[in-house]
């Protein structure tokens, strides 16, 4: 269980409050106006921002001051998810060893992960020779080898076309189901949220509201939600 206990994140004059829990093995969409603090919330969970107040816990572990790499959390960013000078396989391998010291078994895990995301043939290619969808798949393969129980997606598929985005979301749903991971994903598009999420966190008015079940939220949207959807 992921717990945000009276968390206050401050960045200059902007601040965001969050106080809720997220059940394990759930898929949660984070929605709200741009600039509202969706990415800020994920950054705090991933460890790139330290909250001014409050605690972030995973089960009984206090993560609040842990550096990003020590947290049981993997994140995919909006861009720059792969190092352009490394091959697809090397980029995935970094998820196992940050110094890229891989054993024979590790190499096998990398290959398996690339096969799983449908990129068996692309292992030796560098990102410049991959399409946007393939780059996203490499990043997903890295999530697989990292094997963290919490996955954060900060709109990594925003630049893809609608069909490709739906395909990637389905792949994410499959991978999350296989690994029993807890997923939080930022989304701009209510359709994306409906497609994949069990529940939704609405970020508005400097508050990250507690998650509400997806169908419930869309059937009976609160005022902030109605403002956002227009």
């Amino acid at each position, binding site marked *: 269980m992921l717990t945000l206990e009276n968390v206050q994140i401050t960045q200059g004059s902007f601040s965001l409050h969050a106080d809720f829990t997220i059940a394990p093995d759930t898929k949660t969409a984070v929605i709200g106006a741009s600039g509202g603090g969706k990415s800020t919330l994920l950054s705090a969970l991933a460890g790139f921002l330290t909250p001014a107040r409050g605690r972030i816990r995973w089960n009984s572990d206090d993560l609040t001051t842990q*550096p990003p*790499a020590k947290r049981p959390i*993997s994140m995919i960013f909006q861009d720059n998810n792969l*190092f352009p000078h490394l091959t697809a396989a090397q980029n995935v391998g970094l998820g196992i060893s*940050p110094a890229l010291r891989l054993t024979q078994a590790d190499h096998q895990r990398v290959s398996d992960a690339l096969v799983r995301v449908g990129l068996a043939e692309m292992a030796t290619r560098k990102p*410049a020779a991959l399409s946007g969808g393939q780059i996203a798949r490499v990043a997903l393969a890295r999530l697989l080898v990292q094997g963290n129980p919490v996955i954060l997606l900060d709109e990594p598929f925003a630049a893809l076309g609608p069909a490709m985005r739906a395909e990637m979301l389905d792949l994410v749903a499959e991978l999350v189901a296989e690994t029993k991971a807890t997923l939080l994903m930022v989304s701009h598009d209510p359709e994306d949220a409906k497609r994949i999420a069990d529940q939704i966190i609405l970020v508005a008015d400097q508050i990250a509201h507690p998650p509400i079940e997806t169908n419930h939220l869309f059937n009976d949207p609160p005022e902030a939600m109605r403002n956002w959807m227009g």
Partner: protein
Amino acid sequence: MARRAVSIISPLGLWGAAAAALLLFLTLGTLAAVAWQAEFTRGLGRADIAALRFTLIQAFFSALLSVALAIPVARALARRQFPGRQILITLLGAPFILPVIVAVLGLLAVFGRAGIFNQMLNAFGFETVSVYGFSGVLLAHVFFNLPLATRLILQSWLAIPAERFRLAQSLGFAPRDMFRQIEWPMLREVIPGIFAVIFLICTTSFAVALTLGGGPKATTIELAIYQALRSDFAPGKAALLSSIQFLLCTLAAWSAWYFTRHQDAAAGFDRAVQRSDAGAVGLRIQDGLCLGFAAFFVILPLAMVIKSGLTGILNMPDVVWWAALRSVLMAIASSIVMLSLVLPLAQIAAKEKRAWPEAIAYLSVSASPLVIGTGLFILLNPYFSPRDLALPVTIIVNAAMAIPFALRGLLPAMREVEASYAPLADQLGMAGFARFRLLTLPRIRRPLGFALGLTAALSMGDLGVVALFADPDAGTLPLMIYRLMGAYRMEQAAGAALLLLILSLALFMIFDRGGQKNADT
């Protein structure tokens, strides 16, 4: 992003502190030594005042001539598209890494007593001109700085948006209006900074003054320091002159910084602006003449070095080859020392967004090699023989002098790495040397190769600190050439100069190409 301060006791912090300490010692430490030993009470003699005046006057006129001549050349390059344009622009970059002594020999072959120029004057019945003294120093400084000024002005010219020229054309501007409304405002903005940079370079001129100047009428302060220490053995006098030189350089460096602080030279050289106002025959001829002049002025001395060197190079005593070997090894060592100093500073500046590493790295801009040399001489002389330390001291000083150039290339690249990839690297737990090897190094290869090549070439051609310290029989190749010139063994000097030219360019290219190989973005 939260700033994760790297503690001073981390390996990077310690390494950076050590690099900073060494640079502070070389700049402010040696300055303190100089100030401590300076005989302020003895005052400035007549020769010292003459040196100060000569330094200021030659630097002023060198900068003035370089900039004034560079404007029409840069304009011609900006508005003409012709085969060989790119080669000419590359060639204009060459004097920067060209050893001074090589250029001096080339200029002597063209403008010297028996040079092409005087032969032509003779043939037409004119008096020959002397290249020594004020005119020679000026000539050499313009040779080095006209190309530099041209490239800097050209960058600003090409940074003017093409739309502005198009608008001017649609308003029916004549070339004169074009100049007054568009080009002059740009020039007024950039010229003071370029003038100040060249003034600074010429203030610290040593090798040119040593070879073409000298005597009571053409001695720079830098040369006077050398003579005080080396010929008169008067450290107190050298220290006094060094103090003056430091003030002068600081002032010049400050004004260079003041005039350039808002400029950002990021434009490329690849496009010439299409302009209908430049089509007139008169302007075409004018541009053609400017480009022809610039090309000849740069190419002719180099061609003469190659031509006169070819006979001498096969016929040189063994000591020249030994000096060459020493020089190459020292140049490589200098590059490595430079790297070990600049990397931690750049990394701390980029990663922790600190300003002090940059400030320390740029301190050496206002410290001239001979001032550093004098300070080190004062500090080391009581305990060691300067001759024994000549080579390590030269290696370290040359490394320090190259740091501002290296940092200028490296820091933006490292900042870009941090801005784009720090979150991913942090998330994956990449840290320490593995992070440097897997992330930073592959992404800074180009500026790194360039910085190493530049340092190697500059230190290969250096004739400064080494002249102050070295035993002439165990010196570097430039020092050897200076000695051969002094002994009027011009054929051997020419051969050695050609060897030096080849080695400098080769070192630069090996490092620079090494940075470009496999450097994918």
